[in-house]
């Protein structure tokens, strides 16, 4: 498989290409108090400017992994380093995290504008600057006309856009996305994927993305970490060495199909030993 030739696990080595690692997981494990083993020793690094996707079947612990990166869940073994430091460093300028959840997770009682400005409000940001940031974030996702709407007045796709605007409003240095478009129809999802790819390129974002869609992973990522079923392991990392910006034509190209085939074979392989569980 030519495409996957440099796919050997890169381990905990600092991200490739001499990029500064934004987050590193070193033998990170997670076992829940109930005894459920969610994650086997994970070694993974996300370098600045990368778009890394965790791809795996449901229940492989990829969301747990993202929560560990977000600092919301503590690993039961191993280490996590953010900007080569502990979690205390997170949140300072240049080291901001933001997360987009599976659902839009907007406050139903607040208008879109107030939802988007929430991270700034919580940080006690100065009003005029916050106002500018909110406006530009809404413009980025094309919701500037809906600032005064309540979330329930928006479609599912628009709610997700608002959620992304809220994540972008702090200009995060690492954006975590947990199957953000999983609940949307395929047409909306494709559109939002294309917009996200464009945002990532234009704003030089660093993204850690979780999905169970092979197509989404190939279209968006610079690198895909293929995970096995529970307990989750990174079985292989596959670089998607394709030029950016990625056009819609990439979706129907032969190379796209080849990547998809390689990834789906890896997924099948990874699930085989524990196939009895499904």
């Amino acid at each position, binding site marked *: 498989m030519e495409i996957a030739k440099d796919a050997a696990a890169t381990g905990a080595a600092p991200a490739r290409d001499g990029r500064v690692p934004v987050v590193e997981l070193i033998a990170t494990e997670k076992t829940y108090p109930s005894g459920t083993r969610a994650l086997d020793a994970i070694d993974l690094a996300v370098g600045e400017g990368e778009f890394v996707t965790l791809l795996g079947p449901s229940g492989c612990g990829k969301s747990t992994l993202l929560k560990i990166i977000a600092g*919301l869940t503590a690993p039961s073994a191993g280490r996590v380093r953010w900007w080569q430091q502990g979690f205390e460093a997170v949140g300072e300028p240049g080291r901001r995290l933001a*997360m987009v959840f599976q*659902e839009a*997770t907007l406050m*139903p009682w607040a208008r879109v504008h107030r939802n988007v400005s*929430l991270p700034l*409000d919580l940080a006690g940001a100065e009003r005029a600057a916050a106002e500018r940031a909110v406006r530009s974030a809404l413009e980025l996702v094309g919701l500037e006309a809906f600032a005064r709407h309540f979330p329930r007045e928006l479609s599912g796709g628009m709610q997700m856009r608002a959620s992304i605007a809220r994540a972008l409003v702090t200009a995060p240095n690492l954006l975590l996305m947990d199957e953000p478009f999983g609940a949307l129809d395929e047409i909306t999802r494709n559109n939002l994927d294309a917009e996200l790819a464009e945002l990532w390129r234009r704003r030089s974002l660093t993204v850690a993305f979780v999905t169970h869609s092979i197509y989404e992973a190939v279209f968006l990522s610079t690198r895909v970490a293929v995970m096995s079923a529970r307990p989750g392991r990174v079985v292989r990392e596959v670089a998607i060495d394709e030029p950016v910006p990625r056009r819609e034509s990439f979706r129907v190209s032969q190379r796209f199909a080849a990547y998809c085939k390689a990834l789906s074979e890896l997924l099948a392989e990874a699930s085989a030993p524990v196939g009895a569980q499904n």
Partner: protein
Amino acid sequence: MGRLAAGQRFARIAAPVLVGVVMVVLWHTLVKAFDVPKYLVPSPLDVATALVQDWALLSRSLLVTMKVTLLAFACATVLGTLIAFLFAQSRWIEASFFPYAVLLQVTPIVAIAPLIIIWVEDIEAALVLCATIVAIFPIISNTTLGLRSVNPGLADLFRMHRASRLQTLMRLRIPSAAPYFFGGLRISSGLALIGAVVAEFVAGTGGHAAGLAYQILQAGFQLNIPRLFAALLLITVAGVLLFLAMAWLSRLALGRWHESELAHET
């Protein structure tokens, strides 16, 4: 669409009114047809006459009962909310005290009212206390539930952005609790009235502080059944008005965003 909306409005307002009118007419006809004496079942006309003739007496009693009800409702709301906040602070506090809140709820007020009336010298304060005990539980349980019913994703988001305890309370937990709180308010308003009437029954206070329950008792003793009905009617109307006021308040607060209120729009 206009026809549909008109049809729905008819179903919501005109239909129950029609049922009421039919019932009253039926009541009147039956009482007249079987020549039922006034001291057993008065006709609607007798009740209306009593209401007008005894208005001075009844309206004064209505004011007394409403005062007790509203004071008790206010006490229950303030105290219940404070207790709910306390419960929501820690599972330990809730686990330690919640059973006693339940105890308060399941003990029939008629059983403890005599004690309270003995212990509390000021009779009005005693009545308010009784009604508060009856009305407080829905506020406590609903608000506690609401303060805990926070969307886990939003809770994560607040945690990620290192929101302080106060920020989380003001911006997340209180708004999340609001629909539950207003639900509790509706139930509690009715219970406050019931509590006030029951406590008045037990106290049996006459004189200038006579509430509607006292008028019902007296009217019963004197076989003045039309007045009894009139007093009953006033209690019912007061209860309905309280409920409507709470529904209006709830819609005012939640109407813009909450599902329970949005249903009215379409």
